[in-house]
Each structure stands twice: as C-alpha cells, then as structure tokens.
C-alpha cells in the first residue's frame, strides 16, 4: 500500500472518492481431507489460535428420503440425542452441558446434521458422547411420544406466521408430489403417524458410513482426528447402496397462477413469487448468482431499491435461488401492507421482465462483481465458515477447486450469460 505522507486535511477534497489501492490475493485456505477405511469423508481444518474444537457430522440424506412419511427425517435426527444404549436423554443433556459443550442438530431437504462445539480439554469426553448418540441410539417409545408432543405443538405455532403459510403454498405447488414440496419438520397429521419402525428403518438406511461427511475444526491435528474416526466409526460395515437416483420428476408451471392463503386480521401480505429451477449441480452457478444479486439478492439490488428505497412499500424485498440436490426453485419474497399488495406484485413482475428481456448495464455488472469478490474473504474469517464451504463441495458433488477458482470465475461472467441465466 502506498500512502501520501503529507496528509494535509485542509486540502481535503471530499467531492471525489479516494482511488482504490492494489487489492490483495485471497487464496482459499488449505484443508486436510481423507477417507476412512469404510468410506467416511473426513475434513480437518486445524486452527490452534483458540482452545476449542468443533466437529460436524453431515449425512447425505435429509427429508428427500422421507418416503411419504413427511417429517420423518427430522424426527430421526432429533431422536438421536434422546437416549442411547448407554445413557438416558437426561444424562446426555447433563453431560454435554456439564462440559460446557454445545450439541446441535438439524435437518434440511438433503442432509441431517449433528455437531458439537467444545473446549479442547473436554474433547475426548464430548466426542465419546456424540459417538454413542450416532452409533447406539435407543429410540425408546416413551421418548418418541415426548418428541411427538413437542413437534406437533411447534408446527401448530408456525401457522401463526404468514411467511410460513406463503412458503408452504408456494413449495407445494412448485414441487408437485416430490418431498421438496413438504416442510422438513412435517405436518401435524404426518408427525402423528410416525412410529418406531419408521424411525429405525430410516436410521439404518441413511445414517451409514458411505453417506457421512465429518469435518473437524480447531485445535486438533489431522492424525488425531483420523484416529478418532477409525476408533469410533471405522468398524461399521460399508453398505453398498446403489447410487442415489432422483425418483421424482419436476414439472414447471406453464401458465402463471395466483395462490391466496387468507389469514384473518393480517396487517401485511407475505408475498412469494417464483418458479421451479434446477439442482445445485446443474446450475450454471456464477452467472445465476450474479444475476440474482443484481435482481434481488443484495441490498442495492433492483427489487429492493424499487420496493424499499423508491416506493417505501416494505422494510425489505429479496430474491433467491434455493438449490437442492435434485431440483431447485427461484423466488422473490417480501412483506407489504395489505393495501399495496397489488402495486408491489406489479413492480416485482416488472423487474423480472426487465431482467429477462434486457442486458444488465456494464456498470451494474462490474459493481456487483466487485461486491461479491470484495466480500468473499469475510466468509473465510472463521475456520467454521471455511468448513461449511468444504462440506457443501462434498454434499453437492462439486469440484474441489470450486472455491479456489471462485473469484476468477465471478470475474469472467459476461452480460450475455447474465441474460441467459434470467430466462
């Protein structure tokens, strides 16, 4: 960086912005990856700056494999910590908390996640607990009933939120009869019917070594991490499962439709406008990503500018692509006062049409590339966010150099590609 050593502020001309200095290269950090003897993908990002370790277990399954029992996948994930052959649910919670650790878990349409975050000094003890949870869950009837009551009550509460209702209506229309049409947490009816056999079967079929990615982050070496994996998970036999095939067909809607969910007394309308898109792997990622950022994916995007800054219709409007493993969707979302619903919809449709029919300006394209590449290093600030990126490579079968080529690939995108991405 070169600086003018004679900074006299009386000469300061505020009317012109200072020029940019040379930017620094941002390499994607090195990480260790290997496979266990029985096929588990292991990733290690060693960082000794703080005395903590986190481990994430990701199973490539998710609610896509609910097989008509909506909410099953999520139910199974939540049941894992509710008792094992060695410990009751209360003992598990007590021990995890005693060591000051955090155990988190969740499910989305393509994966089941379980993670721990712990002080390095208690790592061995906490890892043993999570290994018991994953290897020997007991799925006791009493705990199943307990979880069912919790889930049914949460789902009922969700219906109080208008964006839950608009999202439900949108997904079920766009994704037809596929599991992506249904909410991951299930519906009150479907959750009421889940039984122990369903849970056990899902667990056996999906929580397998060949489905598993494990990422270690923090104060731990790759050698020690591999030893923990081999000792705790290495003896499970590898089930040869046929390659996962997409069993559903996805059909785009041909004529535009309007779905209305009436929520009495709501003061705002929750809007969701969009369509079927492609899977994460099929997507021409960089043009699509930049196009969406210009359209509605950032604060300065056209849709947010139009609806919020120009018209004051909303606190915020956004568009995004939700890419799943086998299909995806695109949508614009916002919340507006009920009285201006029609005006807001018309502005959104107008922006969608302009994006489809006209080229973005050179200024918009350059600016958005700078925004995306300039902010990219912020996503590499913590070893945990680096781990999320590496996991996504494995989860969606992407090329290993996806992130090391990220900045150069963003910079290559042309406005012709952007227009193609909008159609």
């Amino acid at each position: 960086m070169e600086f003018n050593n004679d900074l006299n502020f009386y000469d300061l001309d505020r009317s012109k912005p200072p020029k940019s200095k040379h930017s620094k290269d941002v390499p994607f950090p090195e990480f260790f990856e290997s496979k266990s003897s029985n096929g588990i993908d292991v990733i290690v990002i060693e960082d000794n700056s703080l005395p903590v370790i986190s481990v994430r277990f990701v199973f490539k399954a998710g609610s896509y494999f609910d097989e008509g029992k909506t909410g099953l996948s999520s139910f199974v994930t939540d049941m894992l910590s509710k008792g094992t052959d060695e410990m009751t649910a209360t003992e598990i919670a007590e021990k995890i908390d005693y060591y000051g650790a955090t155990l988190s878990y969740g499910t989305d349409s393509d994966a089941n996640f379980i993670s721990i975050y712990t002080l390095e000094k208690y790592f061995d003890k906490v890892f043993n607990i999570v290994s018991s949870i994953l290897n020997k869950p007991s799925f006791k009837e009493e705990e199943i009933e307990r979880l069912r009551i919790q889930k049914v009550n949460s789902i009922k509460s969700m219906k109080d939120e208008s964006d839950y209702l608009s999202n439900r209506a949108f997904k079920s229309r766009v994704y037809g009869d596929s599991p992506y049409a249904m909410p991951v947490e299930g519906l009150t009816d479907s959750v009421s019917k889940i039984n122990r056999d369903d849970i056990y079967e899902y667990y056996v079929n999906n929580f397998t070594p060949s489905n598993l990615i494990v990422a270690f982050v923090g104060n731990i070496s790759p050698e020690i991490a591999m030893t923990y994996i081999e000792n705790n998970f290495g003896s499970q036999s590898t089930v040869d499962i046929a390659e996962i095939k997409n069993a559903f067909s996805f059909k785009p809607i041909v004529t535009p439709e309007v779905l209305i969910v009436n929520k009495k007394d709501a003061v705002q309308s929750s809007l969701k406008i969009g369509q079927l898109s492609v899977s994460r792997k099929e997507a021409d990622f960089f043009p699509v990503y930049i196009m969406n950022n210009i359209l509605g994916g950032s604060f300065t995007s056209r849709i947010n500018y139009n609806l919020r800054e120009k018209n004051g219709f909303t606190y915020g409007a956004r568009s995004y692509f939700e890419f799943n493993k086998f299909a995806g969707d695109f949508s614009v979302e916002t919340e507006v006062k009920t009285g201006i619903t029609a005006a807001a919809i018309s502005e959104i449709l107008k922006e969608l049409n302009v994006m489809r029919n006209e080229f973005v300006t050179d200024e918009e394209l350059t600016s958005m590339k700078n925004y995306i590449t300039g902010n990219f290093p912020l996503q590499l600030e913590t070893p945990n966010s680096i781990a999320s990126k590496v996991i996504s490579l494995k989860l969606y079968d992407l090329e290993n150099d996806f992130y090391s080529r990220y900045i150069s690939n963003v910079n290559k995108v042309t406005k012709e590609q952007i227009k193609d991405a909008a159609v």
Partner: protein
Amino acid sequence: MKFPEIKFEQHKLSNGLKIFLNRNTKIPMVSLHTMFHVGSKDEEDGKSGLAHLFEHLMFEGSPNIKSGQFDLLLHKRGGNSNAYTSWDVTSYHMTVPSNEIEFAFWLDSDRYTGFNVSEESLDIQKDVVHEEKMTYVDNAPYGSVEDEVSKRLFFNSGYKRPVIGDMNDVKNLSLSDLEIFFNNYYRADNSVVSVSGDIDIDNTLKLLEKYYSGFNTGNMVVKSGYNELELNSEIIDTIYDKITNPGLFITYRIPKVGDKDYYVFKIISNILGDGESSELYKDLVYESQMCNEITTSVYGAEEVSILSINAICNEGISPDSVLKRIDEKLEHIFNFGLTENIYSKVLNKIETQFYKSRNLINSVADRLCYYENILKKPDMINSEINNYFNLDKETLISVAKKYLQKNKRVVLYYLPENK
C-alpha cells in the same frame, strides 16, 4: 484463569474524537465502526422513534453523496454496511477490503460533517420504518412483547418506549427535528470510532485525522439524567394476540451493564434456560412438557438491565400454571442454593461461549466502541470475562434474591384472540 487478550491501541484526534485500533491480518479486510452515544432513551416524549429514523436517514444523502448512492458506491468497492439503534447507542458499521480503507473513511465520515437529507427521502424512510414495525411487531406472533413490557417495567425514563417508537410520533417528525438531533448528538465528543482488521496503524491514524477531524465539536446538549422510579408491586396483565399457543413473559429489572452484580444475572439466566439440562428447560419442556419452548436472556443497558424468562406453552396449558412452577423453581434455588455440579457446569459453559465470536473483526470493533461509550472502559473487551469467575455461589444467591422479587417484576400472559 487466564484468557487470551485482544491487543488494541487508543488515540485521540485533534478534535477530541476517540479512536481504537486493532490489527488482525487473518483476512485482507477491515471493519470500521462509528458509534454515537445517543439512543432512543434520549428522545423527548412525543418524538419517539427519532434516533432510529435518523439512523435510516444517514444512508440517504450527505454533503457530497447523493441520496441512493451510499450503498451503490460502497458495493462497487467490495464493501458492505449496516447500522443499528438501541436504547443507548446508534452504531454504523462497514466492512471493506483493506485496499479500500481510505474510501471507507471518506464515505462514512461525510455524513457526520453535515446534515443533507431531502423531504422526499424522509417521507420514504418513514414508510419503510412503518413497514419494519409491521413486519416485526404488528404482524409477528408475540411481536408486541417488547412494547408491552417496556411500558410496564419503566415509566419515568426513555426505557419505557421500544426503540422503533410510536408510529404517530414518527409520522410527525420533521426535517428540522432531525437536524436539531444531528447538531446535538452527532459530534466528536459524543462518539467513538474503531477500526479492526488488516491495517497499518500509523497510516490508519493519519487517514482518520484527515477524514474525521471535520466532526462538529463544542458544547453538547446535556442529556436528562436517569430518574426511574422503584417498582413496588407486581404487574400482571393479559394481552390477546393472533396466536395458537399461549405465552408467558416475565421480566425483572436488574443492575446496569458493567455493574459487578450484572454478571450474577448472566449466570442465573444460563442456569435457568441455557441448554437441555438447564433448570427450567429440564422441568418445563422435557419432564412435564408444559412448555414448547423456554428461553431466558439478559438485555444489558446503560442505566438498568432486564432479565427475561419467556415461555411458549403447549396446548391446553395455562400460563399461570407455568408461572407457578417457575416461581417454585426460583424459590428452591433461593432456599437451597446451587449444587457444586450446577455451578461448575455454568462456568464451563461461560468459558466455551467466551471463545465463540472472539477475534472476529466486526465484533472486536463493535465491542471497543460500546465499552468506551457506555462504561469508558474499553479494556472490558479483555477483563469482562473475569467478572464471572470472581463471583462465588453465596454472593450469587443473595444478589439474585434481592432483585428477583415478585413485587419488582412484570408478568404478561399472551392468550389467543377470540377464544
């Protein structure tokens, strides 16, 4: 116990503006925070929502930057920005690639050198704020809790209003109200700037002098002192909302941020509601299944803080039965103290949580500004953690007992409308 420290430097510009610098070269980015020691609690009655609306307008034009240009210019240089308003402070932050640090100083500082917002921008941002309130308050289940709690827990200070303000007040705010607010509070002696990230200390200081010495100086309007009255009897009210499951919201007044007793309640909150083995979760969510969710939290503020216990009941459970159970639990802790096991557990949790967002450039810059503005003790970024480990079980119980009394709290039952 010894915790790793964050190194920072403290300086003053020629106009008296306080500066904090923290060099961290992990990624080639810089985080810039400018925090003003003014928030919604400083507003006059009838002009509520002023501080927050003002924050919105700081992105809508300044002497050299036209309305609508702020974020466009910033994005083009690879940066991003945001801001927040609380009862006590208003904070603006920006993150930019380190080669754009001078640009960030230019862009951020221009808006503090003069007020230049149009009538049209004011009207649009009033609409945006109104929509913001509808999204997070009016149209959200249990969304009015903050509003309903504030006006019952406080009555003689600015803490009685939620930050976003009353929409009738907001509607009537004029450009001249905003300009007076700007002249009163947006000045060098009422703000702190901190920069964290990939910086060269000497050059950063020179650039700060170049861009930030144009702030207003002079005599600041004296803020009205904190003069809240004691709560003498328990307030219990019922609110009807568009919800399915009943809710219970209990709030107590507790000591202000930085007070040694304040940390007692961070620990109590953790013991009651953090983790699946915490006292209230275990009893109400797991064992009796009376509640679907239970959360406890401490909201720290400059003059007084709040401990909240929030519960969403399961179907068929009334909030008063949950309240009774919580009171029994508290009574038990007051009478029998805490076991060694519970106490070790909470200290282990606090130690783990301490590392969670440690060293992140945005959080370091924010905390330095906050501790300086509120406590005049920037070193709290390193020393605060000791406040937890210097307590003992007996002190904890006696302090908790003193503040968590029924006649010093507000209890709200949220019940479904038309049922």
